[in-house]
C-alpha cells in the first residue's frame, strides 16, 4: 500500500463529502414549472367569477384561435403590477382569458374596476382544482394555449413590461 493507492479511499470520501455539501448548500429551485407543457388543457368547466363576464371551459380554448390564459386573483399583489401588461397584450389583439383562484365576485369586480379588464371570460376556481390540473403552483401565472387547446408555454410570476412584445408574438405564433 504505497503512493496513491493508500489515499484513494480518503480522496473518494472527501469528493463524496464535497458533492453532498454542495448539493445541500446550493439554493433550491423555487419555480416549479408545469409538466403539462405540450399537453392538452385538462378538461374543465368553471362558472363565471363575477357578474357581466362569462365563465370558462376548456372546450372554449380549442376553437382554432390561440389564447393567453392568465391565472390570477384579486387578493394577489403582483397581479396588480401585471394588469397594465395584460391590457397591452389584449389591446394587441390577443384574446386573454382568466381563471380567478379562490376569489369572491365582489372583490374581483373591484379589482377589475380599479386595474382595468383585459379578460373576455373569467372562470371561478374556488378550490384551486383547475390550477392544480394545469400544473400551476401560484398566482400570477400565464399559459400560452394554441388553437387546438394545447399548452405551449408557461410564464411564472407577473408579466413584465419588457416581456409583452415577445408574449404577443408567442400567442400569435401558436396557431
Amino acid at each position: 500500500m504505497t503512493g496513491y493507492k493508500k489515499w484513494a479511499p480518503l480522496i473518494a470520501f472527501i469528493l463524496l463529502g464535497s458533492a453532498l455539501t454542495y448539493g445541500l448548500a446550493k439554493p433550491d429551485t423555487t419555480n416549479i414549472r408545469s409538466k403539462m407543457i405540450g399537453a392538452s388543457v385538462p378538461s374543465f368547466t368553471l362558472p363565471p367569477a363575477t357578474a357581466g363576464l362569462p365563465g370558462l371551459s376548456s372546450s372554449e380554448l380549442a376553437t382554432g384561435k390561440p389564447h393567453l390564459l392568465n391565472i390570477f386573483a384579486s387578493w394577489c399583489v403582483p397581479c396588480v403590477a401585471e394588469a397594465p401588461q395584460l391590457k397591452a397584450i389584449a389591446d394587441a389583439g390577443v384574446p386573454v382569458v382568466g381563471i380567478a383562484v379562490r376569489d369572491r365576485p365582489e372583490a374581483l369586480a373591484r379589482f377589475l374596476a380599479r386595474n382595468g379588464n383585459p379578460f373576455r371570460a373569467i372562470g371561478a376556481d374556488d378550490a384551486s382544482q383547475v390550477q392544480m390540473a394545469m400544473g400551476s403552483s401560484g398566482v400570477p401565472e400565464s399559459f400560452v394555449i394554441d388553437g387546438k387547446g394545447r399548452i405551449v408555454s408557461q410564464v411564472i410570476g407577473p408579466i413584465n413590461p419588457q416581456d409583452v412584445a415577445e408574449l404577443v408574438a408567442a400567442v400569435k405564433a401558436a396557431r
Partner: protein
Amino acid sequence: MRWLFLALALVAAPLLADSDLPPAPLADTQLSDPKQEAQAQALMETIRCLVCQSQSIADSNAELAGDMRAMVRERIAAGERPEAIRAWLIRRYGSWVTYDPPLNRLTWLLWAAPLLFVVVGLLVARSSFRRRRA
C-alpha cells in the same frame, strides 16, 4: 416606473398572500371512514407543498396545500387509489412534488449507493488484509 416594479417585486415575492375564502370543506376535515382517512393521511405526508417548499401538504398551512388536501380526500373518498393520485400530481409537477421519489433512470443510484459502498468496502478490506498476512 422601473423602481416601482422592483419595489413591488420585492414586496410580492415572499408574500404568501391569502384569499379571504374559507378553506375547502375537506381541507381540514377527516373522512368519516377511518381506513380511507389513514390512506389519505399517508399520501398527504409524502406530497410536497408547492408554496412552502420544505413541508408536506399535511403539515402546511398554505391555502394551496389545503386545497391539495381537499383534492386528495375527495379522490380517496371517491375510491381512487393513493398511487394514482400521486401519479396525477407527478404528471403535473414532476417528481419534485413527491417525497417518495419513483425508482427511475435518474434515481436508481439513491437505492444502489449503499450496496455499492458495501462492495467497495469489502474490496478495500480484502486487499488490505491480504497485504498484512503476506
